[in-house]
C-alpha cells in the first residue's frame, strides 16, 4: 500500500452525472441508420456535435477545478463550458432539423439546450487571478525548463527498459506522473519556476543518472538489494516532488530544505554527484 497517494484528494465533479451527456445522444445512431441519406448525415453531425459538447463540458469542469484549486491561475485559453453550451444547442438544432425539416423547432431546441446547459454548468472563469507581475517572458523560460525536464523523463524511461523489470518500470512511470504534476503546476503559474527549478533540473538529472546506473547493474546482476535501494530512492524523490508541488499550489514559501538535504545525501550515496550545478 502506498501511503499518501490519496492525501488531499478531492472528488472531481467531472465524472458521474456528466457521463450522462455522453449517453443521452446515442439514440441518434439508431435514427441515423433508419432514415434516408440526408437524415443519416444530419443525425451523425448532431451526434458528433453533442458528443463534442459533452467532452468539452468535462474538460471545462476539470479546468475550473484546477483553477479553483490554485491561488494564482490564468483563465482557460478556451472557455470550454461556454463553448459546450453553444454546441449543445447547435447539436440539438441539427437533430431537430433532421427530424422535422422545419426552422422553428430547431431554433427552440437550440435556445433551450444552450440556456439549460449554461444553468447546469455555469460559465468558465473569465479572469486571471493573482497574475499581477507575470509576463510573457516568464512563460518562455517555463517552456524551456519543461522541455528539459521532459527530456530527463524520456531518458529515464529509456534507461529503465534495459533493466527488464516490469514492476520497476511501472514504479518509474508513477514517479513520472508526480513530476508531470509539478510541470503542469509550473506551466500554469510561471512564478513557481524559481522555486521548482532545482527539482526540475538537478534532481531530475540525478534521478535519470541513478536510473541508468541501476539499469546497468540490475541487468547484469539481478541484485535484489540494488532493486530495493532504487525503489526507495524513487519513493523518496516522489515524496519530495509531491510535497513541493503542493507547496507551489498553496503558493506558500514552505521550506523544504530538510527534505532536500535528506534527498541530497541519498543521491550521493547512490553515487550521483550534485555539486557541479545548482
Amino acid at each position: 500500500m502506498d501511503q499518501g497517494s490519496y492525501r488531499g484528494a478531492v472528488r472531481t465533479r467531472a465524472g458521474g452525472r456528466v457521463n450522462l451527456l455522453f449517453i443521452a445522444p446515442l439514440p441518434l445512431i439508431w435514427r441515423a441508420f433508419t432514415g434516408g441519406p440526408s437524415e443519416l448525415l444530419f443525425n451523425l453531425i448532431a451526434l458528433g456535435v453533442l458528443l463534442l459538447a459533452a467532452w468539452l463540458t468535462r474538460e471545462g469542469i476539470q479546468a475550473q477545478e484546477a483553477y479553483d484549486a490554485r491561488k494564482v491561475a490564468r483563465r482557460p485559453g478556451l472557455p470550454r463550458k461556454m463553448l459546450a453550451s453553444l454546441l449543445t444547442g447547435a447539436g440539438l438544432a441539427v437533430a431537430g432539423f433532421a427530424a422535422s425539416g422545419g426552422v422553428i423547432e430547431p431554433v427552440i431546441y437550440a435556445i433551450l439546450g444552450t440556456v439549460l446547459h449554461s444553468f447546469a454548468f455555469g460559465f468558465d472563469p473569465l479572469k486571471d487571478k493573482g497574475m499581477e507581475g507575470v509576463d510573457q517572458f516568464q512563460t518562455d523560460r517555463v517552456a524551456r525548463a519543461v522541455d528539459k525536464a521532459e527530456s530527463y523523463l524520456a531518458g529515464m524511461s529509456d534507461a529503465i527498459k534495459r533493466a527488464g523489470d516490469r514492476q520497476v518500470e511501472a514504479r518509474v512511470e508513477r514517479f513520472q506522473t508526480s513530476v508531470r504534476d509539478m510541470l503542469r503546476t509550473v506551466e500554469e503559474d510561471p512564478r513557481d519556476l524559481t522555486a521548482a527549478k532545482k527539482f526540475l533540473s538537478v534532481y531530475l538529472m540525478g534521478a535519470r543518472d541513478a536510473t541508468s546506473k541501476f539499469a546497468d547493474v540490475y541487468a547484469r546482476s539481478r541484485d535484489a538489494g540494488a532493486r530495493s535501494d532504487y525503489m526507495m530512492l524513487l519513493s523518496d524523490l516522489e515524496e519530495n516532488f509531491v510535497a513541493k508541488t503542493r507547496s507551489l499550489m498553496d503558493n506558500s514559501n514552505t521550506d523544504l530544505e530538510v527534505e532536500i538535504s535528506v534527498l541530497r545525501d541519498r543521491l550521493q550515496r547512490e553515487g550521483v554527484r550534485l555539486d557541479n550545478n545548482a
Partner: protein
Amino acid sequence: MGRWGAFMSETGLQKLAFFVLVLLILFVSIAGGV
C-alpha cells in the same frame, strides 16, 4: 463568476437544469422532437 458561483454552485436549480437538459437531449434524439 463570483456572485453566480455562490448563487448557483450545486444548488437544486443547477441539478434541475441538468436533468431537464438530459431529458431534452433524450427526447430530441429518440423521438426527433415534435
